[in-house]
């Protein structure tokens, strides 16, 4: 005998939208950091530190990979030096400066490419070409083209970050719902208001994604550029450590760079969360 049809709809039906959405007050609390939520990460970190402290010295000699203790001592020594903070400040300033300039130019250029067929046909192949050029080529060219080390670094930041933001912004504008765009057009806005009402906010999720990728790339490239040509900054300090075969120093400066990038990423994420407070995020 055939079984009666099951009633999956009733069982899995989500609660009414309005009820689901009584979350604006509760969401921030859920998102708050807590030890309980990060237990797995903390346990993994602890395991890695224990492995480093006890297993690594048995596997490789100290001059290949220093012990945890050596790195901690080096960390303390580097933090005691006043120059450390000058280096961190210089690198952070370069990252933020490159990020802001590349971000602004990338957003403006991305919007222009998406809104104008002629500009798109002319410049999009150039942007795609630039993204395909290896970073090392730009570094070598920057050394030949610019005498000032600051100019070299800013040039590298720009040429490596701006195309990423440009392409993401372009994709963001192209992804705007045609129906929404038509609706706003039907209200008769001028071009400036069209940009403000639909084009820029509609593209923002992609723009933020581009900015985050750009920040990550920029942070790594700035250190590369500093190592090649600057006399201050985290990259320069890493280069000095490399010259003296100081692996503990390289690790400490790498950690400092990661911390700087993590702080910038947290700040950007906070801005993003505020910006996208209207969005219901997917939570897997």
């Amino acid at each position: 005998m055939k079984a009666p049809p099951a009633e999956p709809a009733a069982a899995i039906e989500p609660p009414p939208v309005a009820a689901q959405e009584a979350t604006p007050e509760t969401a921030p609390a859920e998102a708050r950091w807590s030890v309980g939520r990060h237990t797995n990460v903390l346990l993994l970190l602890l395991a890695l530190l224990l492995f480093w402290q006890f297993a690594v010295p048995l596997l490789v000699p100290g001059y290949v990979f220093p012990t945890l203790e050596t790195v901690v001592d080096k960390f303390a020594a580097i933090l005691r030096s006043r120059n450390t903070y000058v280096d961190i400040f210089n690198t952070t300033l370069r990252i933020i400066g490159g990020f802001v300039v590349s971000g602004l130019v990338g957003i403006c250029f991305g919007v222009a490419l998406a809104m104008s067929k002629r500009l798109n046909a002319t410049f999009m192949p150039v942007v795609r070409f630039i993204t395909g050029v290896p970073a090392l080529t730009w570094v070598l060219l920057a050394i030949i083209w610019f005498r000032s080390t600051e100019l070299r670094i800013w040039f590298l930041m720009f040429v490596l970050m701006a195309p990423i933001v440009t392409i993401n912004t372009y994709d963001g504008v192209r992804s705007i719902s045609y129906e929404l765009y038509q609706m706003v057009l039907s209200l008769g806005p001028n071009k400036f208001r069209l940009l403000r009402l639909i084009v820029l906010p509609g593209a923002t999720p992609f723009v933020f994604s581009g900015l985050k990728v750009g920040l990550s790339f920029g942070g790594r490239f700035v250190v590369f550029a500093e190592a090649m040509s600057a006399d201050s900054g985290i990259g320069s300090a890493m280069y000095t450590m490399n010259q003296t075969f100081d692996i503990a120093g390289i690790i400490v400066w790498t950690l400092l760079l990661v911390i700087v990038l993590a702080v910038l990423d947290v700040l950007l994420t906070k801005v993003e969360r505020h910006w996208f407070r209207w969005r219901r995020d997917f939570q897997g």
Partner: protein
Amino acid sequence: MKPAIKLTDVGKDFGGTGGKPKRVAVRRVSFSVYPGEVLCIVGKSGCGKSTLVNMMLGLETPSRGSITIDSKPNSGHHRPVAAVFQTDRLLPWRTVVDNAALGLEAAGVSKRQRHDAARPWLERVGLETWGGHYPHELSGGMRQRVSICRAFVLQPEVLILDEAFGHLDEVTAQQLRQDCLKIIAETNTAVIMVTHNIAEALATGHRVLVLGKPAEIIKEFELKAPGPGERKVYPALRDEIFDLIEKQSEYTA
């Protein structure tokens, strides 16, 4: 009385340049709608109704003919034609009140003024306490109410309801339709209701136009019953319109 909107031999073709074959989307359409009148347009999917709506909204330029709108000289920041679409088309990053006032913002009205203008309309549709919420916090019916507010805030002479109740459940659609018709009667707005639903057209309109494919008026029905929304569906008329549309699809198959 002058018509609020008058279409004279309006047609629209696509293609025909760069080696692309010409496609007639709207062959020749002429009609007028007067203030306070509800004109319903029915036709098969793809017959050119959306192109006709886009032309009335100024989103497409007619290939031939003309569209004349009897716009008031100036009654604040208003648009002569506004539309409520099948989907609410609310901007997800804007609050309910900002969505309702979107048309005023597009016209450059200050934030305070546009919020002051939008709030009474939100109150009118029962959303006065939802102004600060985002669209994803609302049900489908509530979102559609916001899109109705967005249209009425502009004080349009002509309101286009483009399948405006088509994706809602029957009960919500009926409530919303009644609310909308009440406001239309009070504001004396000329309404063009585009719908697939013949029963809805007969229950709502003063006149019903049946479109062929490509869009041209193949028959017009004038309904002599009481006001829109209060009339029972005419089964015979419904069948006649159904047959007309069905025949059109046979011709174009």
